[in-house]
């Protein structure tokens, strides 16, 4: 027990890093997803194509390869220099962005065409129709899948420990090797992840109930 008590403050420091990266990356990822989804649905072939290449490239490669590509690969070009946290945030964001793009695209396409027609017939522009009529309905439908992807992305942040980010997993590793109590430390790390994800689920359920279409 003493070992856990001693390790806990350090692990919680790591949790802070994990949450910091997660929150920024998930917001960025969502914005990327929204833009890419709209590009994917735009009536311009080249834009559709760009969006599709992006989504396919991200979905078709492992997360860890994307991380190494951005942190080691891009940095090796000596054009910009990304620190590990920035590289981590970017990787999680563009990774989540590709999945969000598909979720948002499917959500938009699931809204009945009649909704768009009704809005356009009133005189709304295409953009207004998206903003006031289609997206609000689509988001309600997407919420469970968005939650799911957010959880996956949160768990993906644990892979950032391999480029030396002092996140929860990294701190766990340090504590486990320092104390020789791998079982206890990894159990605690697991419990902390679980609690955070459980809280996330509760928040998502709450929002879902609040915005339900009657």
């Amino acid at each position: 027990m003493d070992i856990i008590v001693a390790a806990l403050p350090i692990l919680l420091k790591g949790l802070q890093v994990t949450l910091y990266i997660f929150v920024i990356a998930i917001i960025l990822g969502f914005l990327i997803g929204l833009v890419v989804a709209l590009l994917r649905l735009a009536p311009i072939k080249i834009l559709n194509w760009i969006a599709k290449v992006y989504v396919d490239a991200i979905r078709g490669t492992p997360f860890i390869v994307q991380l190494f590509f951005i942190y080691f690969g891009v940095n090796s070009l000596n054009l910009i220099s990304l620190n590990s946290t920035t590289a981590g945030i970017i990787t999680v964001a563009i990774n989540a962005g590709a999945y969000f793009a598909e979720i948002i695209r499917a959500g938009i396409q699931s809204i009945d065409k009649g909704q768009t027609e009704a809005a356009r017939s009133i005189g709304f522009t295409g953009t207004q129709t998206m903003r006031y009529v289609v997206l609000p309905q689509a988001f309600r439908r997407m919420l469970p899948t968005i939650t799911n992807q957010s959880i996956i992305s949160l768990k993906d942040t644990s892979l950032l420990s391999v480029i030396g980010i002092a996140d929860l997993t990294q701190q766990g590793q340090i504590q486990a090797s320092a104390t020789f109590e791998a079982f206890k430390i990894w159990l605690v790390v697991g419990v902390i992840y679980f609690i955070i994800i459980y809280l996330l689920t509760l928040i998502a359920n709450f929002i879902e109930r609040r915005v339900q279409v009657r």
Partner: protein
Amino acid sequence: MSIITVKNLRKSFGTVEVLKDINAEIKEKEVICVIGPSGSGKSTFLRCLNLLEEVTGGEVVINGHDITDPKAKININKVRQEVGMVFQHFNLFPHKTVLENITLGPIKIRATDKAEAGRLALELLDKVGLREKANSYPGELSGGQKQRVAIARALAMNPKIMLFDEPTSALDPEMVGDVLEVMKQLAKEGMTMVVVTHEMGFAREVGDRVIFMDGGYIVEENEPNELFGNPQHVRTKAFLSKVL
């Protein structure tokens, strides 16, 4: 002076030609009912009047604006504000209350003050007999109520023309009367209306003119009593013998 002029209108979906050379003149305050068998192109014709369907050829002039002329640089969104449309499946916004459905257009497009838009919406709800449903969601309404809200929503933009695309076809029979009653009232107030319908009784009673379409053409058009009582064309006769 015609408020709607259609000249040589053609519309194809891929290789299927749905409208073949449609010509029509509709005057202000006229109520035109469009009838015909399914697949005759009547809904497509209606949807070309506010460019919900892109036309393949010909001209559609709404209130002086040639909306089919790419050189005219007409802002179709502006024109659509003057042309209300009511759909077979209502297409109310399910995430908004009845009141919000009606006020959304005026508030967002016309920048009408929220309170003023609300007051106007309640007036329109009175007109369609649904003031008490202002705070309900569309999902809580019957089909007939939904359609009356949809009419109110279209009227909130204060349009000069109202298009109705089979407004009663998706309703239970006992709901049809209420909706037709609202439409009759609207006609009486002098609204220019184009109504695609299977309600021959309504066409006969309220229509100033009835257009019979078949196979992508306007086969015959006349005053309702003439068209129903003394159809000239064999196809009109055949159709009417089936539906009357």
